[in-house]
């Protein structure tokens, strides 16, 4: 489309032939075939989901050994293709490699379910997930090139630790401090991918993959901090307020602080320092949220502090999108807070008008702030 526009500009006498050729050369060198990428992505996702449902249907007409054999042979074939053809494939389209690696990982995950069907083994979900991570994370980390594989690694890790915590909560005998601390430590562990990704980013040809992985770990930290604030606003922590729960929150916070420090060390420069500070800050929010449990206003203020910190870091490191997101989140939380504090606002006509005016005001202010102050995008986002 841009080529047609450029030709039109030339015909209208706006640009000369030399400029036209330079523009065309630039456009073709920086082409981003988004549609093609989207097709690759959708294709890989559909194949992955297809594997899951084919396995889930559990055809009994085909003997288990044959099904498992075909499944493993398919995985092996794709692995061989990846090993032998990775460079050539990547040269043609990095997204083809990405789709291949993602499909292999999906095949591997469904193999566990398939084994369970054929041999009637049923174990809590975290066990096959943990084994899958052990077997496939090295492959994903060494060959991943974009967000689908980064999401597979971090999403798999987060899913695994939450499933573990869930299973431990159901059947765990002890609910003492040591147990809570251990769970809190495990649940914060996926954050360890942040310093690893930050360290690898400057040292790898696949900078895009490590960038996405760090972003996802960053998002996990921020989501955890925000969730803790919301939890405190609703008074969700134990009413008995056991010391163990506070120590557990401190433990998660300490892991986040270590991960944040690691990011700052691994990636010198403003961007790395800011990303590290936010991860550590999100960790510090956890014990603070425990202390402010059931205090709606103070817990909301903690939430604002976290996101104001993110906005400030985004300003310093020139992450335009993150800044705008932070402003939007703060505005949304302000609106929700007003209803939390004055629940009867919606019951009278006057209250309704007041609420509407306030929502418009907050939204207007947020749009103004995010337009006026948002930094130009730096060379790398968080």
């Amino acid at each position, binding site marked *: 489309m841009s080529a047609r526009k450029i030709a039109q500009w030339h015909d209208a006498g706006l640009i000369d032939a030399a400029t036209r050729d330079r523009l065309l050369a630039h456009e073709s060198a920086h082409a981003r075939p988004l549609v093609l990428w989207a097709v690759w992505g959708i294709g890989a996702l559909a194949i992955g989901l297809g594997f899951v449902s084919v396995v889930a249907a559990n055809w009994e007409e085909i003997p288990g050994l044959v099904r498992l054999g075909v499944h493993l042979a398919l995985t092996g074939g794709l692995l061989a293709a990846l090993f032998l053809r990775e460079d050539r494939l990547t040269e043609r389209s990095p997204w083809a490699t990405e789709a291949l690696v993602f499909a292999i990982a999906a095949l591997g995950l469904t193999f566990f379910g398939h084994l369970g*069907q054929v*041999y*009637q083994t049923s*174990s809590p979900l975290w066990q096959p997930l943990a*084994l899958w991570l052990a077997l496939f994370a090295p*492959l994903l980390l*060494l060959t991943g090139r974009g967000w689908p594989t980064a999401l597979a690694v971090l999403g798999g890790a987060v899913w695994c630790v939450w499933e573990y915590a869930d299973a431990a909560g159901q059947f765990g005998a002890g609910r003492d401090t040591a147990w809570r601390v251990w769970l809190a430590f495990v649940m914060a562990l996926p954050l360890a991918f942040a310093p690893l990704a930050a360290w690898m980013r400057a040292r790898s040809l696949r900078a895009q993959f490590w960038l996405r992985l760090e972003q996802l770990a960053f998002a996990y930290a921020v989501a955890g901090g925000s969730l803790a604030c919301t939890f405190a606003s609703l008074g969700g922590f134990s009413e008995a307020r056991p010391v163990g729960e506070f120590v557990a929150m401190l433990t998660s916070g300490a892991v986040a602080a270590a991960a944040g420090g690691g990011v700052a060390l691994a990636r010198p420069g403003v961007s790395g320092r800011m990303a590290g500070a936010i991860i550590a800050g999100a960790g510090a929010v956890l014990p603070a949220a425990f202390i402010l449990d059931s205090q709606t206003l103070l817990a909301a203020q903690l939430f604002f502090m976290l996101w104001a910190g993110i906005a400030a870091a985004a300003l310093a490191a020139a992450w335009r999108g993150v800044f705008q997101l932070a402003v939007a989140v703060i505005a949304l939380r302000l609106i929700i807070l007003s209803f939390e504090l004055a629940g009867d606002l919606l019951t009278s006509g006057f209250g309704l008008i007041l609420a509407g005016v306030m929502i418009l005001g907050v939204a207007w202010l947020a749009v103004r702030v995010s337009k006026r102050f948002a930094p130009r995008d730096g060379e790398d986002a968080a």
Partner: protein
Amino acid sequence: MNRAARLAVTALPLLGLGALWAQSDRTYHTGTEWEVPIEGYDPRDYLRGHYVEFAYDWPGVFYDGIVPEALCLTGKAPRLERAEWLKEGQSCAHPVRADLSGVYGSNALMRGRLYIGQERAEALQQQLQNRAHRGIVTIRQRDDGSFTPISIRFRPLTPAERAERDAPPNQPLDPFDPLAPPAVMEQAP
């Protein structure tokens, strides 16, 4: 990228899955088969597909709030005659023990599941609700107390079982039950 490292990460998933397969196959095929009566049902798991869930009805074992963590099976396999609570340190030729790290935790001797195909799952679900039949699960029990359900079948109820099924619920056990009809009927003059 280092070629050896690439080869290692490519081979690792294949070797790991293969080893897991071999081990699962070996475990599945060892053990003594026993037929255990069951009741109840419940379907589906999102990663592994369809299964029926059932409650074991071990002959001779009555749950009274406390669930046994180990049982001793007696009989001539696969005919299960009796199951008894197995105490710590007691010797037993055919023990079954709850896998505390499994999906059912300490309830593993009460509940179990069997993965089956989508179509058969629906048919079985209806059969499990049919009160004229008795569900029987064959389990493979190993010397260490671990066991795996391997198949499910149905048989018609025996006369004794039918009588038990048709008995009114909460039948009074006390001979001096005040609600029971009087033992001696007064004849009108």
